[in-house]
């Protein structure tokens, strides 16, 4: 059941159905490897010493998407947008509050402990922080070997050989197996994390900000490694990041999240060329450009991201929105994620075309008709 937390305004509209919004553009005739529908994770806020329920943080609030086999879906957004929670809910490292997660035909949420453990052989995760995600008391070899043992994939000399091979595949010397994590740099540790994920031969990996903690030169090494592994093994990635340039580089399609929802979803190339949701436009224009000769117009958003415990009614982005047609309707109608161009989905009732009719908008207090608004962005200014 969806928990509404009792905070929604009376004029708040309903969410439109959006089943097709999410299907992978590649391989349209085959079933996706991963399919997520209306995923939600609400955290209760406890107040006082008796743990009275004080409200709800809607960390993820109705997220739907598909990922095709061999595809990389990038998920970008700022702190608190729900991207990490989404990744963890898919693997059930966090239990979702509502929604469906279907992996290769299996309903992940319905699985008991033992089948879930078996499924995790196919679904792995690489964490952001290579310093806290490796046990400092285990050798690198033992860390990589653990998955082989747990899933009974290899033992004894065969396991040793496999560990050495995995280290080599991620660009580390095989004799590093006997060393401890503290002897390695951040980039090398991230390679160990990748080797650990690969040890069980997964088909799908959630990459949760895998290069955010790394220096630029090392970041490029790890990005290239992830791309090589994908090509060689046919891996499917959910690549979560806040860095737009890395996502553009590695992802086939990109989902932009804001306050627990997907606000735009498109092919990477289209998203960066024609960002449609005003939030995406601002996000793209805010990224500093490493070119001192470009002077471009920047959309500087006023204010901060609202607290996910106290979301604005209507469009969650309206308090910071810069769209010229923004009006009272934006504070009352929850914008559906709708197809603005083939394969390009965005949630904005003021960005044409829209299925939310002008009559409907006027009934909600609209004064400015929708118009297509494409301010000069980082990409176009070149």
């Amino acid at each position, binding site marked *: 059941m969806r928990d509404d937390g009792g905070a929604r305004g009376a004029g708040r509209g309903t969410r439109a159905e959006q089943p097709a919004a999410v299907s992978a553009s590649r391989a349209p005739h085959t079933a996706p490897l991963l399919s997520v529908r209306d995923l939600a994770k609400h955290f209760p806020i406890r107040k006082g010493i008796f743990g009275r329920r004080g409200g709800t943080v809607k960390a993820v609030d109705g997220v739907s998407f598909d990922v095709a086999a061999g595809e990389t879906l990038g998920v970008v957004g700022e702190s608190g947008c729900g991207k990490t929670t989404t990744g963890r809910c898919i693997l059930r490292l966090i239990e979702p509050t509502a929604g469906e997660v279907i992996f290769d035909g299996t309903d992940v949420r319905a699985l008991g402990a033992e089948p879930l453990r078996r499924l995790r052989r196919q679904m792995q995760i690489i964490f952001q922080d290579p310093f806290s995600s490796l046990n400092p008391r285990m050798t690198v070899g033992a860390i990589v070997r653990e998955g082989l043992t747990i899933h009974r994939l290899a033992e004894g000399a065969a396991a040793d050989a496999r560990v050495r091979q995995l280290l080599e595949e991620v660009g580390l010397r095989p004799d590093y197996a006997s060393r401890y994590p503290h002897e390695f740099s951040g980039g090398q540790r991230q390679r160990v994390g990748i080797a650990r994920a690969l040890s069980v031969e997964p088909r799908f990996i959630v990459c949760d900000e895998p290069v955010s903690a790394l220096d630029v030169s090392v970041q490029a*090494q790890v990005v290239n490694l992830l791309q090589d592994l994908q090509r060689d093994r046919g891996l499917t990635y959910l690549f979560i990041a806040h860095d737009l340039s890395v996502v553009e580089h590695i992802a086939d399609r990109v989902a932009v999240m804001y306050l627990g929802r997907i606000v735009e979803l498109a092919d990477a190339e289209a998203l960066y060329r024609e960002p449609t949701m005003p939030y995406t436009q601002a996000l793209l224009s805010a990224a500093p450009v490493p070119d001192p000769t470009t002077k471009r117009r920047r959309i500087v958003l006023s204010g901060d991201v609202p607290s996910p415990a106290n979301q604005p009614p209507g469009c969650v982005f309206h308090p910071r929105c810069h769209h010229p047609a923004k009006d009272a309707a934006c504070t009352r109608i929850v914008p559906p994620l709708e197809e603005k161009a083939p394969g390009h989905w965005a949630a904005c009732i003021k960005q044409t075309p829209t299925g939310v009719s002008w009559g409907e908008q006027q009934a909600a207090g609209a004064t400015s008709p929708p118009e297509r608004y494409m301010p000069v962005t980082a990409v176009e200014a070149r």
Partner: protein
Amino acid sequence: MTAPLLSIKDLRTYFYTPAGVARAVDGVSLDVHSGETVGVVGESGCGKSVTALSVLRLVQPPGRIERGSRIELEGRDIMAMGDAELRAVRGDRIAMIFQEPMTALNPVFTVGEQIAEVPRVHGGMSRRAAWERAVEMLALMGIPSPAERASQYPHQLSGGMRQRVMIAMALVMDPALVIADEPTTALDVTIQAQILELLAELQRKLGTSILMITHDLGVIAETAQRVIVMYGGEVVEESPVRELFAAAHHPYTEGLLQAMPRVGQRRERLAVIPGTVPPPTAWPSGCRFRDRCPYAWDRCAAEHPPLYHIAEGHVSRCHLADEPERRAEKHEPLVVRAGER
């Protein structure tokens, strides 16, 4: 040219650790002139943050600024100052903005009290006048309802707001120089844009010089007029910002620029700098970048390169300046031959 505001000559800051002497900063010289923004860019362990701490003599044992290092502010020798004199310089003439506003602010005092403390201690202002000044500063930082915000505690503010408070604290005494150590690294990109805009505007209004320390070449391109690239505790290249991005000379700078993915420029494969930064306890002989360099030849191991003159205001610590024809002979770096990618 007028005398620089800040002049650092041959700064050496070493850490005496059980693993050996870490030469974190090893002979760095740089100048900051009045009203300019100088960017210092480099990766973890290059010595950029230790350089910043050294300017204010905030290096803690086992770290030590070595004899012979010279730091002058407005012609005054910081290395020769006593504690009282040094305290007067810190916060008053030079202020610092740190990366992590949550750990740099005191959680048990309101932000107004923390800002007001600076003019009370440094300017001898009354409690009331200092408080009014704090509210005024918060308003200058573009914080809505500054009087209310001043009475709040750090945990009640967002990350972007806290960084504005840090900047207010840094600027309240109208210092000549602000050292900003990764001031936007912990912030989201839309908040980073706000803070960079604010810093630029304040600099126009107040004429403050900024030493901007960052790993982000995008931030450098947007804020700095002059750039210093550090690697292995040394300055490896210094250049006006446009020239650095258009015609980097040092192979490390070249590698950094190529390794960076850019919005709007999707490529098949990113260029990489193979290998990792060597530990500061064991810098390689000769050129410290040579193991990872695609041009290195025998001279690079034998001879520590000086800073060669490349063009007006542009220097580079690379023997290629002396033997430019070697740039045509690109090869696999040594670390790759040793079996690492």
